[in-house]
Structure formats: structure tokens, C-alpha cells
């Protein structure tokens, strides 16, 4: 089953710079895909198009078989509830505890509190932060904060997880832990798309690699590496 499908997608920003040019790409359910390339190659645009933060200029994008370009503004929240997002800067809310940060996702989508009380501790155990449940983000290390953001993205069990440079601010050992966590989430059946320019992470995982340059796909490899040295 095709989880994500880009057909002839082009994105041109208001200032006439083309971020993506005629992208065709199919990502199957349960795949783990690295999106690599230098800064400005279009990785972030790719991810932002998927959560409809931007609209594509031409072409169609299908998520789980649905054309999201035709999605009405009012239905965008529904789309985002099925896509977990992780960011380089974590985007945790500084004045909420670990528990509240994760529970927030569920509150926002209107889950009843008895479900929140069960699911939040569960996912925090999965990411290994159950003992830090009442800490605030500033009391945690970078790796721990990224785990919280993964817990937040995954607590609702979305079929797709998007990660935009999730290891960008972390040291190699910590990155390793994060990657193990993402692999586990992928093993449960979640489709994971990760934009990165962290060479060692890509090379150690040996998963599908799609390389972008100036908004075009220049390489698509199964079990790939970051790039020629």
C-alpha cells in the first residue's frame, strides 16, 4: 500500500524560488526513508507540504490514498492527527511538564481523560522517560527532550511519523539512542520519513535514501548510504 505519493509536485515560493521541482516519489506503508541533501535542497519543504503547512504549486500529493491538495482548510487538523512530527528544536512547551506536553496532543484532538491517563504513561515508558514524567523541558538533556517530542508525536499512534533533522542538535551517542527509538516505532508498522544531513546516522541504518539537490531527486536507493565521499 502506498502511504505517501508525490506526483509531479512542484513548489515555487512567493519570491519565485523553486524549492521542489517535479517530484515523483512513492513511499510504502511501513517504510523507513531518509531524505538527504544539503541545506536548501528542499527537504523541509517536502515535509511541510505533507502536513499542509504549505500548498504545492502544481502536482498532487496523496497520503493514505487521499489527495491532500484537495483537502479543505477545515480538514487539515484531521490530516495532522494522522501524521506525527518531530523537529530539530523539539518544539516542546516550556511551561508544561513532560506529562503535560505529551498529554497536550491528546487533549487537543479531544481524547477523553481516561484514555489520556492510560496512553501518556505508556508512550513515556516506550521512550524511556517514565521516571521524568513531572520534569519540565529545561530540566532535561537534549536527547531526553527529543524523546519527549517523539512521545508527543507518537502518543496518538499515527501511521506516519515525519522527522525534520531530529538529531541535528544532538551528540552522536544520543543520536544513536534516538535512531534506535525511531527504528522501534518503524518496526511496529509506522511509516517514518526523516530529513537529515547526519551522515553517520544514515550510514549506520542502511535504509532507503532519497537525495535531493536544488529541489530535484538525484538519487533513490534501497539500503543506501548518505552519499559518495
Amino acid at each position, binding site marked *: 500500500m502506498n502511504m505517501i505519493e508525490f506526483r509531479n509536485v512542484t513548489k515555487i515560493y512567493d519570491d519565485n524560488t523553486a524549492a521542489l521541482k517535479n517530484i515523483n516519489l512513492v513511499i510504502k506503508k511501513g517504510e523507513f526513508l531518509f531524505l538527504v541533501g544539503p541545506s536548501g535542497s528542499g527537504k523541509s519543504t517536502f515535509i511541510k507540504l505533507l*502536513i499542509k*503547512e504549505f500548498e504545492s504549486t502544481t502536482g498532487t500529493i496523496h497520503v493514505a490514498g487521499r489527495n491532500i491538495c484537495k483537502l479543505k482548510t*477545515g480538514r487539515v487538523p484531521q490530516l495532522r492527527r494522522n501524521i506525527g512530527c518531530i523537529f530539530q528544536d523539539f*518544539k*516542546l512547551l516550556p511551561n508544561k511538564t513532560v506529562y503535560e506536553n505529551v498529554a*497536550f496532543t491528546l487533549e*487537543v484532538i479531544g481524547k477523553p481523560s481516561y484514555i489520556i491517563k492510560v496512553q501518556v504513561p505508556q508512550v513515556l515508558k516506550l521512550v524511556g522517560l517514565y521516571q521524568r514524567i513531572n520534569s519540565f523541558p529545561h530540566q532535561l538533556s537534549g536527547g531526553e527532550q527529543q524523546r519527549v517530542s517523539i512521545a508527543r508525536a507518537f502518543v496518538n499512534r499515527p501511521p506516519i511519523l515525519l522527522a525534520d533533522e531530529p538529531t541535528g542538535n544532538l551528540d552522536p551517542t544520543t543520536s544513536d539512542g534516538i535512531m534506535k527509538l525511531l527504528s522501534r516505532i518503524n518496526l511496529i508498522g509506522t511509516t517514518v520519513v526523516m530529513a537529515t544531513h547526519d551522515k553517520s546516522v544514515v550510514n549506520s541504518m542502511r535504509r532507503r535514501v532519497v537525495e535531493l539537490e536544488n529541489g530535484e531527486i538525484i538519487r533513490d536507493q534501497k539500503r543506501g548510504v548518505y552519499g559518495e565521499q
Partner: protein
Amino acid sequence: MRARYYFGETFANFKRNFLMAFTAITTVAITLFMVGLFSIIVYDVLGVLNSIKSQVEVAVYMEDNISDELRVYLEEEIKSWDEIEDLRFISKDKALERFREENEGSDILKEIQGNPLPASFEITLRDPEKVSQVAVRFLNKDGEFIEGIDDVIYGQNYVDKLFSIIAIVGTIAMLIIIMLLLATIVLIYNTIRLSIHARRKEIEVMKLVGASNWFVRIPFLFEGFFEGFLGSLIAGIILYFLSKFLLIRGEMALVDTMRIKDLAIVGSGEVSVYIYVGLIVLGVLVGLISSALALRRYLKV
């Protein structure tokens, strides 16, 4: 469950962002206090001026030798005019009687022999501003008084000045109130926008995890509502005590020293309830609308 979330979130935000909320409330309170204070003062001043205005009368003095027929004819004629609200006939005897009452114990009475006072009509008008038009009706084409009329007195200069003062005071007051209101709206809007700006990350995260726009909006609208309400309530309370213990006393003293006893002091009455209600409605509306407008930018994630 939703309602509980919204309320919980509103008050949690109040607590977490106490300084911002405090700033917003203070801003609302101070600006609306200014608006209210000025409104009350203007209201009173215009009230006093208007009560003077409503006392404007036209006195029409008749010639001493006027015949009864002519007098009755004039009375009927004047009564038929549209501008006239009431007409009282004061006979020579009544005029003397009244004069005696007003000057009781005074030497002047001893000097009076016979009855030198003329009979008159005292006319009150539906619209006191038409007083000069009415006065003109007692003149014939040559600019002389019509038959049987000796003089018409309504204090031309005094009345005309009064009316132009009322018009000027009213216009200036209107302009100042409008400017104050604009300043109020801009200040409150900016304060609320700042407090929302401080929480843009929260809004961004909410939108990214799939919150609907209304879900994000409602706690902020609640907050804007409460900030507007609390601020205007504080403004109203301060204003109430200020006007009760200072303003009204000041006005009474002023009225006393100016020896204009019969004038109503309006600000002290129930009418000023409208000012308080108006302040609170204004505060709540500005709070709500500011929040809604300020949010628009941040909801576009």
C-alpha cells in the same frame, strides 16, 4: 469535558502568564477609566447646560390698554403655533402679587403706587433653540411689535451664547471621547497581541498536532473576555467611588457657589448607570475582538 478543558486552560494561562494578563487588565482598567471619567464629566456639564436650556422662556408684555378681545385673540393665536409648548397668562394683578412675594420686606414695595406692572404671556417652547424664531413672530413687516404687544423678552444674547457653548462643548467632547476610544482600542489590542505573541510557540504546536482553529481560539477568546471584563470592572469601581466622593461633591460645591440652585446634577443619578454598563460592554468587546484579530496571524500555520 471540552468546556472543562477550555476553562481550565484559560485559568492555567492566567496563572502561567500572570504578568501579561496583569498588564492587559491594567491597560484596560486605566484606559477605560479615562474614557469613563471624561464621559461622566462631559455628561454632567452637558446636563447642567441643558437644564439651563430647558428653562428658557419667552415673556410677552402687553400694552396697558389692551382690550380683552385682542388679548383672547392673541392668546388663541399664539397657542396655535407649532413651537409653543405652554402659555400662561399673567394678569396685571398677578404680576404685582408675584412682585410683592419676590421682594417681601424690601423698601421698593413702599415706593410702588398703583400697579405699574404689565400683563404678560409666559411661553415655554417645545424646542428652546427655536426661541429667536418665535420672538420674530411678534414683529410686523416693519420690524415693530404687532398690535397690543409692548415688548418681547427672552435674553437674546444670553440664550444665543448658551446654545453655541452647548454645541461647542458637545462637539469637542465627542471628538475627545472618540480619540480616547481609539487610543483605548489600539492600546488594548497591542497588549493582547503581545501576550498572544509570547505564546506563539504554543499555538504552533497546537496546530501541528492537529488542533482545530476553534480549539486554539476559544481559550484566548475567554482570556480576552475576562481581561476586558476585569479591567473594565476595576475601572468602573474606581470611577464609582471617585465620582461619589469627589466629583459629585465638587459639582455641588460649584453649583452652590455659582448660586444656580435649581440645576440638576445628572452624573449622580441613575442615568450614569449607562456609563458603567457601557464601560463593561466596551471592555469585553474590545478584549474579545482584539484577541480574535491578534490571533489570525498565528493561526496560519
